[in-house]
């Protein structure tokens, strides 16, 4: 008869596990990265190329100075007003002369619709605080999302995020929110 193997003493198992646990606690982080996505424009290959001319009424020019103040189309606004201003700019509910033109465009799912030709031009100073810049970007993103949500709820009764890719694509075509960032001016110094 084979001898019984003595049981392995497992009292140090807890110590080993604790050691591993503490190692992982120290070397890892728990934070989830969140952020605002942006796509930078590629550097044009031909620098002599003139930028396309855009009518004055089609541009929402946002200037941020080094004191973190906003000038939107010649009007001093606070950041909290920016969202409504942007939405009004793109919707142009009264077809006003001073707000962007609309063009008839065929969009899948929606058919022939009036699409705004509006364009946001954002310019900041070198002395602008990063926090302000992010808040402006955030407000613009919020305005864009609200416009998209509005259209998707109208069409499908669902929010933009819940749509499938084709539908999202269509909504994006319906509400194109283009943001162009100009090179900053250096009035405020570093």
């Amino acid at each position, binding site marked *: 008869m084979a001898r019984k193997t003595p049981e392995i003493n*497992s*009292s140090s*198992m*807890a110590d*080993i*596990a*604790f050691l*591993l*646990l503490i190692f*992982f*606690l120290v*070397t*890892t*982080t*728990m934070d*989830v*990265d*969140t*952020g*605002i*996505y*942006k*796509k*930078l*424009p*590629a*550097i044009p290959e031909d620098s002599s190329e003139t930028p396309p001319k855009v009518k004055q009424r089609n541009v929402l020019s946002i200037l941020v100075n080094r004191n973190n103040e906003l000038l939107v189309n010649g009007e001093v606004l606070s950041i909290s007003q920016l969202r409504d201003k942007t939405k009004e700019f793109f919707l142009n509910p009264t077809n006003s002369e001073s707000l962007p033109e609309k063009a008839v465009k065929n969009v899948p799912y929606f058919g022939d619709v009036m699409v705004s030709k509006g364009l946001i031009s954002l310019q*900041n*100073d*070198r*002395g*602008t*605080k*990063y*926090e302000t*810049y*992010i*808040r402006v*970007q*955030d407000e613009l*993103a*919020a305005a864009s*999302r609200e416009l998209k949500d509005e259209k998707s709820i109208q069409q499908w009764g669902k929010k933009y995020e819940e749509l499938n890719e084709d539908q999202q694509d269509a909504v994006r075509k319906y509400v194109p929110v283009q943001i162009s960032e100009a*090179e*900053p001016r*250096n009035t*405020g110094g*570093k």
Partner: protein
Amino acid sequence: MSKFRKDGKKELPAISTASLPDIVFMLLFFFMVATTMREVDLNVNIMVPEANEVTKLEKKDLVSNIYVGVPMRKFQKNYGTLPRIQLNDQFATVEDIQSFIASERESRKEELRNKLTTSLKVDQYTKMGIITDIKQELRKASSLKLNYSTRQTAE
């Protein structure tokens, strides 16, 4: 008949610790799954700004980080108190960004190279000047996917 005998003759049995390793292992596995490895030691102080319209950064292995902020106390003697760029573990200048992006690309598989995202982790009190310079360098390096790291605003 006394229910409360003071001179208890029975000794309390020792609490069994046999399940202790199991408990600790459970904790260990939880932390292994729920956390990610710390990649660099920060040399700069960073408090990223808050925003509402945030998206979650997915595929962390395809993200390269650029940190910008005021150097920590112990580095201020050598590097001053103006916001500085940190790439990997060391301080860098704007000119280093192109080579940094190139080396980041180099270390990824060929088919994933154009999917790289750059995440800017910038302190909220930094001025835009340095960020604009970084953006220009990224454009020159044609690394166009950018993510401004922000915190979700507490509701």
